[in-house]
């Protein structure tokens, strides 16, 4: 054996082909199609009209999906890293309140900061993103340095951020944004933002060191550390980004509603987690893809809209939604086990 054969990689004579595994997304995509077709058929049977071919309805679905989707992308990478983030919904509310207070128009007499009205729209955006990232940074620091479970750290943030949202104006809504700010939430903008976020993080998770480290830490934190990965620093980044994206979702939400309220984003964290998990992200860490999460988000959106379209009582909706989420995870888990039995 030549001296350089071991430490100098030899040119492979017969490179193994990049094996095309059955993409996990196909399974979940088929569920999406089944849900859509199901509602379509039921639509004709029950309501005598198409479910999907209704521009207005589709627009509503897509807009609803966008906000949850932005959050779900951040939550997905947290879960892949072996964590969880329960604070997203509350961060949405807190950032909405704070961002909106810097976005108010001077036409409104009772602005939160009368001296700071008619600011350019980048100011509230920056404030909102900074607020979200800051909350995420605190989550990440707690998880990385205190050793308390992510569930507890982010549960604390969930309560605290909701409290901040209420305390900020003593429960009063903040309204009347400038036209510039309101534009972020209007028309197709939320969808564009969502898709941009999804693409960026799809690429980041698959093709960058950031992504590889995220999977590695979720798969085996000990091994990741011994491989030279600075786990603490990376976890802080992951949670900070999740917070930043929740902040972004908060900005979009309040810009679209043209008002911010302390009750906004209630339970969004659970929808986001559900979307990630339906999309194939494993709560055990190390497994998950943004494409799956996007599909998972759309499935959730279709279900909410479909039930309303079929005039199913809102109370039933939640019962069915809960059952479907659990069923999806059970089915996925079963499939995983089958694959690993070999």
């Amino acid at each position, binding site marked *: *054996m030549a*001296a*350089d*054969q*071991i*430490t*100098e*990689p*030899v*040119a*492979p*004579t017969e*490179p*193994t*082909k*990049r*094996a095309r*595994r059955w993409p996990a997304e196909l399974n979940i995509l088929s569920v999406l199609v089944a849900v859509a077709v199901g509602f379509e058929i039921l639509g004709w049977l029950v309501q005598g009209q198409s479910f999907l071919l209704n521009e207005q309805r589709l627009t509503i679905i897509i807009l609803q999906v966008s906000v949850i989707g932005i959050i779900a992308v951040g939550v997905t990478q947290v879960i892949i890293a072996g964590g969880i983030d329960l604070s997203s919904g509350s961060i949405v509310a807190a950032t909405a309140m704070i961002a909106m207070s810097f976005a108010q128009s001077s036409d409104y007499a009772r602005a939160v900061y009368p001296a700071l009205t008619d600011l350019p729209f980048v100011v509230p955006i920056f404030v909102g993103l900074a607020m979200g990232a800051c909350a995420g940074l605190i989550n990440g620091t707690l998880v990385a340095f205190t050793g308390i479970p992510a569930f507890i750290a982010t549960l604390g943030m969930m309560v605290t951020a909701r409290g901040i949202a209420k305390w900020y104006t003593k429960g009063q809504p903040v309204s009347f944004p400038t036209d510039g700010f309101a534009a972020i939430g209007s028309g197709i903008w939320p969808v564009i933002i969502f898709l941009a976020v999804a693409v960026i993080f799809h690429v980041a998770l698959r*093709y*960058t*060191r*950031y992504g*590889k*480290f995220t*999977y*590695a830490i979720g*798969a*085996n934190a*000990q*091994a*990741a*550390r*011994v*491989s*030279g*990965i*600075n786990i603490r620093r990376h976890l802080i980044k992951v949670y900070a980004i999740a917070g930043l994206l929740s902040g972004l979702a908060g900005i979009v939400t309040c810009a679209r509603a043209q008002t911010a309220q302390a009750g906004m984003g209630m339970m969004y964290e659970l929808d986001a987690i559900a979307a990630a998990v339906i999309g194939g992200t494993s709560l055990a860490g*190390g*497994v998950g893809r943004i494409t799956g999460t996007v599909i998972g988000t759309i499935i959730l959106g279709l279900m909410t809209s479909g039930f309303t379209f079929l005039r199913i009582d809102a109370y039933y909706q939640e019962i069915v939604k809960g059952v479907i989420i659990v069923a999806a995870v059970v089915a996925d888990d079963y499939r995983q086990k089958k694959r*690993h*039995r*070999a």
Partner: protein
Amino acid sequence: MTALQVEQATQQEAVAVGSDFLLEIEGVRKAFPGVVALDDVSFRLRRGTVHALMGENGAGKSTLMKIIAGIYRPDRGTIRLKGREIRLESPLDALENGIAMIHQELNLMNHMTVGENIWIRREPKTRLGLIDHSEMNRKTDALFRRLKIEVDPQAEIRHLSIAARQMVEIAKAVSYESEVLIMDEPTSALTGYEADHLFSIIRELRRTGIGIVYITHKMNEIFEIADEVSVFRDGRYVGTHAAQDISRDDIIRMMVGREITNLFPKQTVPIGDVVLSVRNLTLPGVFRDVSFDLRAGEILGVAGLVGSARSNVAEALFGVRPAQSGSIAINGREARIDSPRAAMDHGMAFLTEDRKETGCFLILDVLENMQMAVLNGAYVKGGFVQDGAIGLACEGMRQALRVKTPTMHECIENLSGGNQQKVLIARWLLAKPKILILDEPTRGIDVGAKAEIHRLITELAREGVAVLMISSELPEVLGMSDRIMVMHQGRVTGFLDRAEADQVKVMDLAAQ
């Protein structure tokens, strides 16, 4: 039934059935998607004997064992227990049929007491239907006395040593009146003294008529404890011999199907300058005043019994758990190593002792596992991983190290232990280390892969890499090292040169 009654029952049965076969497996086949793990395998276990199963990793021992323990169902073939054909549906089913398995990863509940673990599902109850703890402890005591085990029935499992946990598992199996006991590498985490104790318990069990299927990679154990040896290779049964009629070389030949002429192909290579100089390294309560020099091209073996803190020293050197005082100098310059990252920046690499816990990313694929240590510098541009370049480098490593895997995208969990280890070695070689720390580089891997890894280590030394090799296997340390550092309870007790070192001298320093 009390432990005493259990004893009487097993003894009576032993007398009644005599030397009949306890367990007979015939023509068993088991296939998994893409691989036939066992093909037409037969195996017979006599009452009151210890029957060793040998074979390289992937030979099918584990699969056979899991079939006997009811974890897998065979595709074909029959299992007869005391002449009666049985069909096992689950591990519980096997247990109720008197077949118990003691897993390599012990299956005990860490936060429950010894007694609770043994009698779970069968807890003695008071008249009110509550668990009768005093009765439970009494029963456990009786059981332990019989097996000559000294463990406190009321201790929580997590406070026990690995050896003690193993004893508890064995006692649990016996408490089910098991007649067939399967032990999967029971001594892999035990010290010599603990292993001896285990052997005396095994002999005791054998005397009462229990048949023991004993899986091991350690050749000397065969001759110490086994009555019969069956060898498997590539999912097929090769043969069975009485342990007294067969030699070590015969077994190795049967296992690999070829002669391994030199298990430790150590070459003498020129030894260079000191690259790593450690002085008075101390971590209070763990190790103290560890000092040594390591030269380029040198293989420094580290020997010592469990509890000698060898691995802790390695962890300190690599910054996993840094020492509190003392100094580490690399190429003559003081280095502050407070994290694995810092150690890597100084050209160090560390193959950890526990492949599953601190080595592999079990759910990730071979490629991802291999590239993990070089994502910090080379192969990454502007945060983007250069998939082409890194893929090519990993593929080169795969070929150089002869890693057997269907593709680079195979989940590493599906590889044999030896191939997993090669992937981890490849991970570190990609980083082109100058100092390589190997902690039990061949633990739990088969003879063929072992020889390959030894050849590789020698080759690296020839290229000028300084190697620190910790090993519990004396023949490995003696065969591979230029020098041997022996530790005992956190202290270096001596150095031996290759020429003067032998088993007796090493053990002398290790046991003090």
